[in-house]
């Protein structure tokens, strides 16, 4: 990661391609969850990488380029929301998960329930859940990305899990 950060700081296009391959899917998913639309996520993902390229020198002081990319993406989400007006994104299973007509009923149901579960928790909790489950970031990295203390991240996570468990129990019953 340090080597990648050094190459990114030097402005190597190949290094940016490597970073893209490394985290674009997770970033895109995070952006879909934050913005509630795949089109918007496409735009913001591109903006995020352009911003990373513009401020390439900052990578020299970055330990984890992936976490840094998430932090930049998060700022881009705020910018976009400021331009378009802040609205809580309602998530659909089709936007979030791979659901096709060929998928079995169980997979489709899991996608529906997971999307509904994410809609049940607050935005802060949803962000922590997505960063933890789908982006594979540690609490420390999530704290860096969101700019809140690690303890707050852990608290949000526990609260979200409790809410999700309650929701799942109700769903099953």
């Amino acid at each position, binding site marked *: 990661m340090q080597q990648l950060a050094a190459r990114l700081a030097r*402005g190597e*296009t190949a290094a*940016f*391609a490597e970073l*893209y*391959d490394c985290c*674009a*899917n997770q*970033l*895109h*998913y995070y952006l*879909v969850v934050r913005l509630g639309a*795949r089109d918007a*996520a*496409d735009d913001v*993902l*591109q903006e995020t*990488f*352009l911003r*990373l*390229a*513009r401020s*390439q020198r900052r990578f020299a002081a970055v330990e984890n380029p992936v976490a840094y990319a998430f932090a930049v993406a998060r700022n881009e989400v705020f910018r976009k929301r400021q331009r378009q007006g802040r609205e809580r994104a309602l998530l659909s*299973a089709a*936007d*979030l*998960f*791979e659901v096709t007509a060929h998928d079995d009923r*169980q*997979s489709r149901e*899991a*996608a529906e*329930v*997971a*999307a509904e*579960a994410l809609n049940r928790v607050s935005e802060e909790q949803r962000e922590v*859940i997505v960063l933890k*489950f*789908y982006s594979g970031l540690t609490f420390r990295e999530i704290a860096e990305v969101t700019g809140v203390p690690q303890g707050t991240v852990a608290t949000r996570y526990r609260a979200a*899990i409790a809410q*999700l*468990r309650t929701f*799942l129990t109700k769903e099953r019953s």
Partner: protein
Amino acid sequence: MTEEDSDVERLFAAAIPQPAPAELRPAVIEAIAAELQVHAGNRRLAWQTRLGQAVAASVLVSTATFLGVSWSEARRMARWDERTVVRSYVVELTAAAASVTDDESARRVERYLLSRLQDGAQPTSTVTRKDLQEIQRWLEGQPLAERYQSNDTTQERI
């Protein structure tokens, strides 16, 4: 992940997230490459601008130093020239004084004028030249200016 949240984990594991559209990658990489190129161009331009500014500054400093040195040298030479001119004037006046008075008076005139020349407290142009003109007029038979007449020491020394 604790055992308590394993059901939540199972739920999210069963739902596979949609990846970023495949067609987005080439567009993003191309945009990044263009951005990096612009960035590198700007950096080169900034470097060239800094170099240009450094050259301009060094030329300016060199010119200022050269002008300063030339100016002080010219002043020094002008002072030296002036003294030379005044010295030859003293010789002429001494000869004139000797022709209208006697040798002793001429020597006193010369000594007085030379002592004024060696007095570096005031520029020769403002003091000695006026004195010389006054003495020349006196030697030509004209009366001394009022300030010389009231200055007994000057007359006595002459």
